[in-house]
């Protein structure tokens, strides 16, 4: 290893490890945690829906307001707020908008979170939770908590469903949006995004 190699390795190691401590990315919040904060009436909480206005009007998380990323970057935050952003589903072409950090760099809210699995997660774990017939104790415990939320937010909790109807993990399937066709909502989600053009490699 020559001297130059050592220098390069050192620079890489420094920049690499510094990266871990120096990220302006928002963290993630789970739907139940968000529900908890809304229920407790946290006054510093600001929830923003990043989908289209039409989708927002159909259904949105209670207390959320609609915003585009451009509007958000122009919003004057005082620095004490906790901001939560959500989209239809995180792992989607629309994920670019959800992952995209609004320009909160200089003066912005104290904490920014993304609802990782978006509205689907809100529906699956807060508004319309389902308990499988063969649920484990841990799942029952979570369902108990979720039914409280569900009652509070005006949804319906259901027990004794088939395992296949309980959504888990990242591929949040089997979750029906109470309103219009999910395919149009998803293509709308795709459009409500920054200009990340597709290109082949």
């Amino acid at each position, binding site marked *: 290893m*020559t001297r*130059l*190699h050592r220098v*390069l390795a050192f620079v890489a190691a420094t920049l690499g490890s510094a990266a871990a401590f120096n990220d302006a990315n928002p963290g993630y919040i789970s739907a139940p945690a968000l529900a908890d904060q809304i229920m407790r009436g946290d006054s510093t909480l600001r929830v923003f829906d990043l989908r289209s206005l039409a989708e927002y009007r159909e259904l949105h998380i209670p207390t959320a307001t609609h915003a585009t990323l451009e509007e958000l970057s122009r919003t004057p935050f005082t620095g004490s707020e906790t901001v939560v952003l959500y989209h239809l589903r995180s792992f989607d072409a629309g994920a670019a908008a959800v992952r995209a950090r609004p320009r909160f760099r200089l003066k912005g809210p104290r904490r920014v979170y993304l609802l990782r699995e978006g509205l689907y997660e809100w529906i699956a774990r807060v508004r319309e939770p389902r308990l499988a017939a063969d649920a484990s104790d841990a799942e029952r415990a979570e369902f108990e908590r979720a039914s409280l939320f569900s009652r509070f937010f005006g949804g319906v909790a259901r027990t004794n469903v088939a395992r296949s109807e309980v959504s888990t993990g990242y591929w949040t399937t089997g979750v029906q949006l109470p309103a219009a066709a999910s395919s149009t909502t998803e293509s709308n989600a795709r459009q409500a995004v920054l200009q990340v*053009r597709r*290109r*082949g*490699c």
Partner: protein
Amino acid sequence: MKRYSDPYLAGVGIGLVLLTAYALAGRGLGASGAFSSVLAGTFDDWVVLELAGVAAGGLVSARLSGRLRRAIERGPQLTASGRMFAAIGGGAVMGFGAKLARGCTSGQALTGGALLAAGSWIFIATCFAAGYAAAPVVRRLWR
């Protein structure tokens, strides 16, 4: 014929070129995509023009280093025609695989890898694993 440059330095050079692509064109490098475009008759595609540049850069560098020569690089046990068959066959398998994966070492491993894309890292893992698994089987081509 001059010696090859240090691989780490060549790597840093490529990394800076890739970074320039991100900064100017909002995208990274590619290669396999050009083959699809050429087959479709589209020549004003970014990747096609890029690959033309790759050839030019390779040509000039080889010329300046005295490495420009007509040859068929192959293992000591292989004939020239054997090598050509292997090149075409290997190329065909790569072409198919690259279409499935939406890219190759340039577009997925390098470009996507540097951007932390999940699928690109999956590609890196399976590509290297499969290469190591297949190498003993095709040893006669290279050793």
